[in-house]
């Protein structure tokens, strides 16, 4: 077999990795900002921290045009059906960042109306701790998500078929104390 020498500016890769590379650097965030985390989300998009350096600056307010949902702030029980509906309206492949303590766990709001972590009811890829997280933390989560997309991406989305991705992270739902 003849060995072909490639020119310097030519690379050989797998199609999956190429697609993952493209996807990870053109994330289109859907800002689902319900509380103070939303303010940090806005400042992440503003000029000082400038999320566009990481290829994710175009916030779209239509779920049809997004592939990254950033849930920023507490989600109450009246809001969760709306959140789920927006998530279902987004096109595959899609990812979700759970930003802040309230969104990830309910935070200090352990009351009847606040959902104790959105990952009980929908898939979450990256969690950001903090109350609210600094913009740097959100940017780190986007960098982490980019690495995740590049590592596991398949062009037909087979990575989402794995059993571990089929169920929410916390399958255990509290028993109702009726």
């Amino acid at each position, binding site marked *: 077999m003849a060995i072909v020498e490639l020119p310097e500016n030519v690379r050989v890769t797998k199609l999956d990795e190429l697609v993952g590379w493209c996807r990870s650097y053109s994330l289109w965030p859907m800002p689902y900002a319900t509380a103070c985390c939303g303010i940090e989300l806005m400042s992440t998009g503003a000029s000082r921290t400038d999320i566009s350096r990481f290829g994710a600056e175009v916030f779209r307010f239509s779920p049809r045009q997004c592939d990254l949902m950033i849930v920023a702030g507490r989600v109450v*029980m*009246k809001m*969760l*059906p709306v959140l*789920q509906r927006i*998530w*279902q309206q*987004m096109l*595959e492949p*899609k990812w979700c960042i759970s930003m802040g303590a309230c969104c990830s766990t309910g935070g200090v709001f*352990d*009351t*009847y*109306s*606040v*959902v*104790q972590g959105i990952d*009980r*009811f*929908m*898939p979450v890829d990256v969690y950001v701790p903090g109350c609210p997280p600094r913009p740097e933390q959100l940017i780190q989560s986007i960098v982490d998500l980019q690495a995740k997309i590049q590592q596991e991406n398949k062009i037909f989305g087979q990575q*989402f*078929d794995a059993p571990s*991705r*089929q*169920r*929410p992270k916390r399958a255990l*739902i*509290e*028993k*109702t*104390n*009726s």
Partner: protein
Amino acid sequence: MTEPSTIEALKAAHSDLTFSEFRGQTRVVVPLASIHDVLTTLKEQLGFDYLVDVTCVDYLEYRDAADRFGMVYLLARVETNERITVRTFVNDPEPTVPSVVDLWEGANWLEREVWDLFGIRFDGHPDLRRIVLPDAFQAHPLRKDYPLQGRGERHNFPVLTRAEG
């Protein structure tokens, strides 16, 4: 604060009123039967044209409390900057007070909020629906006998997975 002349006029118009004062704020406790008449007097004759708030307190297991719910009407008179707090008490079962929407339009949503969170019915309210919580919600969560973490309402949702997304 409330002008002494206002208090005198209110005393002259109605009996059975209990006045008290705390840090310059006048409170008047009214029997449930005459609450609407007293509020009518305050609005029509004494010029309290602004309803600041309608709210409620649950006195379940409160020390020395004789009644379950205490209704609170905060009134203001824009012309003289007077304020007055009107209170009345209602009890289980089916705590009901007359609506004041006919006096102040703005009471509409305030009374809906009290109905939503405390379960106080308002007789004569044009549209007594829940205002904050979902329509399907069963309880009135600011009542003291409602558990802080609810009765499982926050867990009662379908679980979305990747395959369904």
